[in-house]
């Protein structure tokens, strides 16, 4: 159930099958992302893969002394490119791997192009998704939703991605879906259809308890992606943006050349692996401790007290810099995060967000928002964030002042387009769109829970919020998930509590949810949950999604 391992095993098998000798890895845009998420260049170099090429690049040279491993999505364009390639082969031998089902017709097209008999293997390896963490995958579809339904092509891609996840993990699941979502129902039916049509692919050894695929719709919880985050991975994505493990730091003031783009990969970076779920304060402490101890050992007198000192320290020790490129990378990233937090008043904003999402009293919240909107430090994106949260939370409150807040936004110079998104978010994830009691106002049990939570004292005002998905999955693994709201597709039902669960979020999941799933996995031995989404959201990306309505 580890998606990183699943993809890695596919890639290393491909490379093994081509035997010894110099190799080139031929990929398309998407498979390039798939591979680069799990393998570092040095790691793949060890397996005699010396060149990486894109099938759609025109500048490739003829190099008959190379074996070519082609890892491609089975799209029409790729089959076309590949047929062209085979008619005039640039490399000596070809080992072809498609990331999903390839039709007999397409196999024929390729076979007819292979006059020179350069093809040794044609196989389907179902690595048709991007593995982010061991339990998190994405399909990198930025906008899957149009007019509140599947946008053209994205349903097909989602079905392909999701079935390949199932095949790569060898799971033939029972499917449950969010009843309130038309998109979820359609996706569930399409996945079922593929499982039935390609029955030969899904004949796995029966496990005692059938795995469950749970399909959810982001519209049920539009709040989670609106919140500022404080755990490392989630925070980096919210403030800097993570794209295939890469972070663009070129906008950071005074950044050195080799740090303009950094890679954060838990597979290859021990510090990141150990700290990705830690909160901001802890990471700073961990970096500081590491540096301080090293400093003591190197008998230096200067005291490291601030991020700025740490930076100076690193720059003064070039040899240390090389041996601990990771540390300097994290110092830079954490330094930038801390700069942004201060500059944009994110602590205060986040506290208000959490109140809005969790328990806040209406008039107090409204006042705080108004104060924050007039604060010089608050940037437009955060203004929008606050007003959107307020609208979702107090949509049906009789005295709500959405109109008044929108007017403040207008006065603050927030563009029409952005202000429209407040209504967009209400349409996308408002009361009418939801099948759930997101804010726990109706359910007596949920209300009592919240009440007790309040009594216990708030351990951390910045991380009170728990994604709604957390409680859904928690109920699922306890066997308590209501069938009315999350029906099974088909007649068969699970009698036992599920053990292997794949949760898929239409519209994109968040790193906060990935952290929640990680917690569930850690605290429920024997239960394995994998989370996926059409994309991994931050506010910037969510703002794009409903705007297409």
């Amino acid at each position, binding site marked *: 159930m580890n998606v990183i391992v699943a993809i890695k095993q*596919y890639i290393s098998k491909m490379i093994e099958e081509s035997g010894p000798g110099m190799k080139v890895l031929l990929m398309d845009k998407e498979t390039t992302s798939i591979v680069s998420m799990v393998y570092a260049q040095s790691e793949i170099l060890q397996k005699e893969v010396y060149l990486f090429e894109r099938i759609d690049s025109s500048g490739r040279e003829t190099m008959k002394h190379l074996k070519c491993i082609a890892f491609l999505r089975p799209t029409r364009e790729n089959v076309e490119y590949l047929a062209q390639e085979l008619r005039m082969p640039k490399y000596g031998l070809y080992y072809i791997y498609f990331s999903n089902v390839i039709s007999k017709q397409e196999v024929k097209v390729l076979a007819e192009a292979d006059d020179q008999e350069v093809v040794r293997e044609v196989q389907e390896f179902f690595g048709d998704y991007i593995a982010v963490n061991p339990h998190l995958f994405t399909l990198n579809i930025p906008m899957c939703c149009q007019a509140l339904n599947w946008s053209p092509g994205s349903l097909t891609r989602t079905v392909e991605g999701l079935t390949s996840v199932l095949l790569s993990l060898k799971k033939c699941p029972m499917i449950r879906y969010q009843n309130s979502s038309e998109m979820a129902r359609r996706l569930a039916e399409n996945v079922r259809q593929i499982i039935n049509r390609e029955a030969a692919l899904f004949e796995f050894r029966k496990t005692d308890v059938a795995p469950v695929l749970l399909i959810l719709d982001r519209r049920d919880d539009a709040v989670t992606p609106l919140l500022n985050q404080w755990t490392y991975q989630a925070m980096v994505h919210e403030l800097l943006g993570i794209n295939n493990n890469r972070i663009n730091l070129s906008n950071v003031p005074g950044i050195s050349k080799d740090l303009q783009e950094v890679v954060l990969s838990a597979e290859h970076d021990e510090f990141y692996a150990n700290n990705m779920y830690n909160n901001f304060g802890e990471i700073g402490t961990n970096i500081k401790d590491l540096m301080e101890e090293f400093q003591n050992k190197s008998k230096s007198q200067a005291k490291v007290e601030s991020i700025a000192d740490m930076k100076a320290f690193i720059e003064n020790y070039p040899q240390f810099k090389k041996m601990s490129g990771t540390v300097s990378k994290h110092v830079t990233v954490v330094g930038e995060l801390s700069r942004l937090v201060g500059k944009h008043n994110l602590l205060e904003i986040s506290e208000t967000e959490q109140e809005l999402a969790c328990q806040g009293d209406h008039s107090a919240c409204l006042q705080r928002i108004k104060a924050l909107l007039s604060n010089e430090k608050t940037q437009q994106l955060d203004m929008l964030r606050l007003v959107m949260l307020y609208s979702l939370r107090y949509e049906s409150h009789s005295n709500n002042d959405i109109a008044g807040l929108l007017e403040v936004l207008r006065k603050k110079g927030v563009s029409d387009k952005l202000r429209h998104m407040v209504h967009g978010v209400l349409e996308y994830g408002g009361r009418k769109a939801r099948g759930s009691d997101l804010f726990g106002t109706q359910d007596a049990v949920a209300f009592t829970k919240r009440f007790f939570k309040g009594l216990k004292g708030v351990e951390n005002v910045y991380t009170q919020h728990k994604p709604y998905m957390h409680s859904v999955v928690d109920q699922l693994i306890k066997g308590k998930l209501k069938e009315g709201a999350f029906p099974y597709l088909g007649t068969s039902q699970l009698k036992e509590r599920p053990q292997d669960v794949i949760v898929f979020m239409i519209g994109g999941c968040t790193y906060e949810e990935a952290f929640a799933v990680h917690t569930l996995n850690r605290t429920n031995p024997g239960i394995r949950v994998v989370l996926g989404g059409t994309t991994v959201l931050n506010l910037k990306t969510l703002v794009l999604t409903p705007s297409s309505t």
Partner: protein
Amino acid sequence: MAMSAEVREGFLCPMCMKDLGTVTMLQDHFEEEHSSEDKDVLQQLRGLLGKAKKKILGEKDSSDMFDTSSSSMSSSTYAVSNLSVTGYDPSVWDPQEIGFVRSRTDMFKSQRGARVDRYVVETNKLIIRLDKLTSSDAPVESSKRRAFEKSVVQWAPDSSVKTCQFCKRNFTLTRRRHHCRLCGDIMCDKCSQFLPHTFAKKLTDPAFQLQSDVDVGFLKRSDSNASLNSILGPEGDPHIRTCANCRKLLERRNDQMEQRNYKPAIVLLYEKMKMCVDNTEDLLREYLPMVESLSAGESIHSLQKAQMYRVKITKLYETIDGLSKKILNLGLNSEEEPQAKQLQLQRAIRLYASNFMQDNMLGLQSLPSEEQYKMLQERRTQEIQQRIAAERLAAIEAQEREKRLQEAKEGGHKNTPSSVKVTEERPRSGSKKLTSWMPSESNINFSDRDDPMIQQMNIIRGYIKQARQAQKFDEVNMLEQNLKELQQEYLRQQRQNWS
């Protein structure tokens, strides 16, 4: 693609990142500059990382605050409740088998097979005919030649075609019909192809070696030889008239043969280099345990043999270094610069080689010198002797205790069996560090009733057996000596008791 980050390469010193050029230079440098101090630094660094790990995974002090001038989080509001849930640990889940795969190769090959097989059969037919036409006993004089050619392949009757199948023009008195000598089809003179005998030889005889780099192939047609139709080419080389279809098939075969036989310089160098890498890996697999054992002062392996291995490996490193540098510089000084991708390939191979050498350099630095080894051996001998002495002492003590017990028993009850817990009394200090074979209790069978002296001897017998299995013959000797002494002592005591 984005994966190709610039990485420094060469014989970089892991401590100061200096590029030393060769392995020997690097080793000298390392021994001179960083023999002791930098090992400490490495050790410290490792300790640091370990500590950081503990900090991150273990209990955390929630009041620890990350206080920067810009952020003003207060510690009381910034503690996380579930500290145990942190970090990234893929090992929580069981190892998994590889995901589902489906091969389409058979389907592909059966689709390709039909057509490609036809090519192969067709081409083979042509090759057989070509062989007949160019054989030494084939008639040369034109009168007999034509009949002979017609016997090799049946010629299409002139009446069967009105136009040339290639240029579609009508045959006339001036545009006459010509036959392909390989398939018998008809074409005009302009569309005829001419295959020299040297090329035919190359195609029909796999052992045929070209004298020089002369480019053989079909004759190039120019205006001057447009009407060429005798059996002699411009250089007097005999040739054969064929059609364009046959030409295509034969050239395809030629390409395949060339690709099979031709290895560019980079491949030859690379194969040599890769062989050295594989050899090095094999040698290291044997060498590393030797170093470990020798550094512990053991004498399973001989120091000379290990030194020999070391020399061999060092030589291999130098060969790998040399070959990969040659690959890196291939074609750099020639008139035609290699193309960009070729250069990228050469650089990647060099990077592979230097990564390999750097990764495996550690094993090479720590073989003890003759004197050091002697000292190590002596220390080990002493330690073993101490251990055995300690065990003997324990045996004697146990025996004494037994005697006392016996005396007490003789005073009181007579039948209480003695149950001496030998395990607790046997000192083990020192033995842990020394050996990889640890004496295990399970291998030693003795009854509680035995005399402790006998028990001791049994234990030592057990050790001897294990040491022998572990091929630690120096220990076997010492233990046997020890056993002999014990036996003598025992006999002496027995005699005393009986007397």
